[in-house]
């Protein structure tokens, strides 16, 4: 191994890199402090989110304002959303066509590797991956899922749930910039995953460029990541209009979609929640069963025009066989197949156990259950069943899908 040792001996840290190591650690005070606060106050934050939701959701959804639309990759009926106006008059609203909405998160964008000063009051700061995405998707209808830090004039972040924060969220919401608290996770101690919450939004590039910054605050936009560097999951349901919570009996009894819910769940999975949404924009039934950290998430809706592109024949294995695409998939999946490989739609009459097995991604993350994760959709006639699975086997899921013979 002498050659190996000689090779590494010849590598050393440059002055530039040395300065980066030193300055990033010593200058990262406020942002890191915020992270620490979030980490240790995660439990409190979760509670605060629930309370906040209960208290403020009705105020965040004025009757004549649509929340973010078209985010489930369904066609938005009207395809319009109220977004903030341009810089000419930031106190007015205007409608912006957001259909079809393609959601861009941190996938494919490296995490920020530089330090940033706290933005000055009245200013917006787009951390490098967000600014890259803005450049990539400028002039399109793509929607960026971004996390937002809001800083006061003394360079401290506004505390989640504080009166000042609520007031600012309300102001932005009234201007057509709805925001929600989303959740990601970070590591604590020996690989323990703990959740943290952050303020988030779904905005087009144009909306971000015209963000109605308040004169008293600085705004920093970034892509949130989990502790292992994976992008934080877009919790679309948080941006969906509030639906009706159902018990399981009512969910099964739903005349439109109830028959498409599975009945005999794998051993140990228990019903957690179900939601029915039926308004101008969406018409769907969602149900969730859990088993510890495992989950079976079922969402039933009518097939939309935007979904058509993800329908695949099982003969086209390049569209869905994950074994063909080694991790990291940012490198291995061709750009033109990214969408369909991420969430293909199969016709039920074509579906086989082998196909379901081809969608299983083995995972062994510390702090989470190991075993397969699956994401795909199945078409029963013109009814689309979208499933997200963690902790159940392909055999279990195939059986569940076969229960629904239409």
């Amino acid at each position: 191994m002498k050659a190996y040792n000689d090779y590494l001996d010849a590598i050393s840290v440059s002055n530039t890199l040395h300065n980066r190591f030193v300055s990033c650690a010593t200058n990262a005070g406020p942002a890191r402090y915020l992270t620490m606060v979030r980490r240790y106050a995660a439990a409190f934050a979760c509670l605060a989110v629930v309370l906040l939701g209960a208290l403020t959701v009705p105020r965040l959804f004025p009757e004549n304002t649509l929340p973010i639309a078209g985010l489930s990759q369904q066609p938005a009926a009207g395809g319009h959303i109220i977004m903030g106006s341009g810089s000419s008059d930031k106190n007015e609203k205007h409608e912006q066509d957001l259909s079809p909405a393609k959601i861009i998160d941190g996938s494919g964008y490296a995490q920020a590797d530089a330090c940033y000063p706290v933005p000055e009051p009245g200013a917006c700061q787009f951390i490098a991956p967000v600014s890259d995405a803005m450049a990539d998707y400028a002039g399109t209808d793509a929607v960026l899922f971004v996390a937002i830090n809001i800083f006061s004039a003394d360079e401290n972040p506004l505390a989640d749930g504080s009166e000042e924060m609520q007031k600012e969220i309300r102001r932005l919401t009234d201007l057509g910039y709805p925001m929600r608290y989303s959740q990601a996770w970070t590591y604590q101690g020996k690989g323990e995953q703990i959740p943290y919450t952050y303020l988030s939004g779904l905005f087009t590039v144009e909306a971000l460029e015209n963000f109605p910054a308040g004169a008293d605050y600085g705004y920093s936009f970034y892509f949130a990541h989990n502790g292992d560097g994976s992008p934080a999951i877009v919790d679309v349901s948080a941006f969906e209009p509030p639906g009706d919570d159902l018990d399981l009996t009512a969910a099964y009894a739903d005349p439109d979609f109830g028959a498409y819910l599975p009945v005999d769940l794998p051993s140990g999975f228990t019903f957690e929640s179900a939601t029915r949404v039926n308004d101008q924009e969406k018409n769907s039934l969602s149900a969730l069963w859990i088993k510890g950290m495992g989950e079976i998430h079922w969402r039933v809706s009518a097939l939309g025009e935007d979904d058509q592109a993800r329908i695949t024949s099982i003969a086209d294995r390049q569209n869905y066989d994950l074994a063909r695409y080694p991790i990291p998939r940012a490198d291995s999946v061709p750009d033109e197949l990214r969408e369909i490989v991420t969430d293909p739609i199969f016709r039920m009459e074509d579906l086989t156990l082998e196909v379901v097995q081809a969608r299983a991604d083995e995972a062994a993350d510390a702090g989470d259950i190991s075993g397969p994760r699956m994401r795909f959709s199945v078409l029963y006639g013109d009814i689309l069943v979208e499933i997200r699975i963690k902790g159940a086997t392909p055999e279990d899921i195939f059986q569940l899908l076969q229960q629904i013979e239409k």
Partner: protein
Amino acid sequence: MADKSCRPEDFEAFVSRHENKLYRTALAVMGNVADAEDVVQEAFLRAYEKAPAFETGGHETAWLIRVTLNLCRSRLRSPWRKRTEPLLVSYPAAEPEQRKLLEHVLALPSKYRAAIHLFYYEGYSVKDIAHLTGQQESTVRSQLTRARQKLKSVLKEDYHESI
């Protein structure tokens, strides 16, 4: 609650003391410069924030290596991690023999690379590596054996070295 803060008064000297070791370790495990730089930066950031008390210099080094290895593991787990320029492009090998060896080493699974690096380059014992990586000694020994089997063709002089 957080441990008592023992942040080094001269943090720059602290960085200088450890940066090359951590950087080379991260390069060996990640196999590219961009990820290695990010990992080491994050390791120093954590050292700055947590500022744990170290009994000895060896303890300090071991803590930093452990954090670096954990960060490497976390980053490698991300399915959508974007690979950048390979290590040998950023730092070309001096000779064909060296290049051949490096290509073989970098083709190993990352856990093997970590074991190989800590054993051969850093000179840690199997017991030390087990402590640093949080694995059983038998696991480390097995990783080294398998790694050396894979490197058999290019590791002539070391192959029969005992562990």
